[in-house]
């Protein structure tokens, strides 16, 4: 039986408005070690409304910017960061 892990992704600003939600869930196969790259592939497949945003987003894991190789595990705080405009 295949297991799955569910990840909640925080959304902000223009991305939050586009998705109409401040958090979305994606599911990854539980059998293999999860990374940010795998997470983004899952977003592309499971969240069509956000797919076209992906080239513009950075991913934060536990309040720090992550790379595609960054490992993730259930319970991590994960956020999709659209282009920032502070200052």
């Amino acid at each position: 039986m295949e297991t799955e892990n569910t990840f909640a992704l925080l959304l902000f600003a223009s991305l939050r408005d586009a998705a109409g939600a401040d958090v979305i869930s994606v599911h990854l196969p539980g059998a293999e070690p999860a990374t940010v790259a795998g997470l983004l592939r899952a977003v592309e497949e499971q969240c069509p409304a956000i797919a076209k945003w992906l080239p513009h987003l950075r991913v934060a894991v536990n309040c720090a910017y992550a790379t595609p190789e960054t490992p993730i595990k259930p319970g991590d705080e994960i956020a999709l960061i659209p282009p920032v405009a502070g200052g």
Partner: protein
Amino acid sequence: MIQIVETELPISEVTRAASAELGDGAGAVVTFVGTVRNLSLGHRIQYLEYSAYEPMAKAEMQRIVGEVHRRWALPCAMAHRLGRLQVGEASIVVAVASAHRKEAFEACHWAVDEVKSRVPIWKKEVAVDGFWWVEDPLGGAPGTADDA
């Protein structure tokens, strides 16, 4: 010292925090204050609304302060305001103190650049005829004022 506030920016406090760390060795304090510009000429802007992914924004500001300390061995302090701001109000202050002005200018400029490129804060402009996110990558049609 890093701060995120919803009220008027504590500009003098940030400047003092940076120079206090150097004590009598501080000869120069460079302070950057960013104020809200009217970016959308042609629209009558009512106000700007700043929002943040706040725990990460604080962490990222703290990392920038740490990098200034490692790279220049200088104290840096900063504060950012969130919520509604009028055009002309101050949204950000960054201060760096140093014995020598060249390093203070360099480090302060670098820190401001980093804040603007890395700290997860966003702003939307709200006009009488709609609102839009600054730096919206897909440049969607403005929402209606009722959505603001």
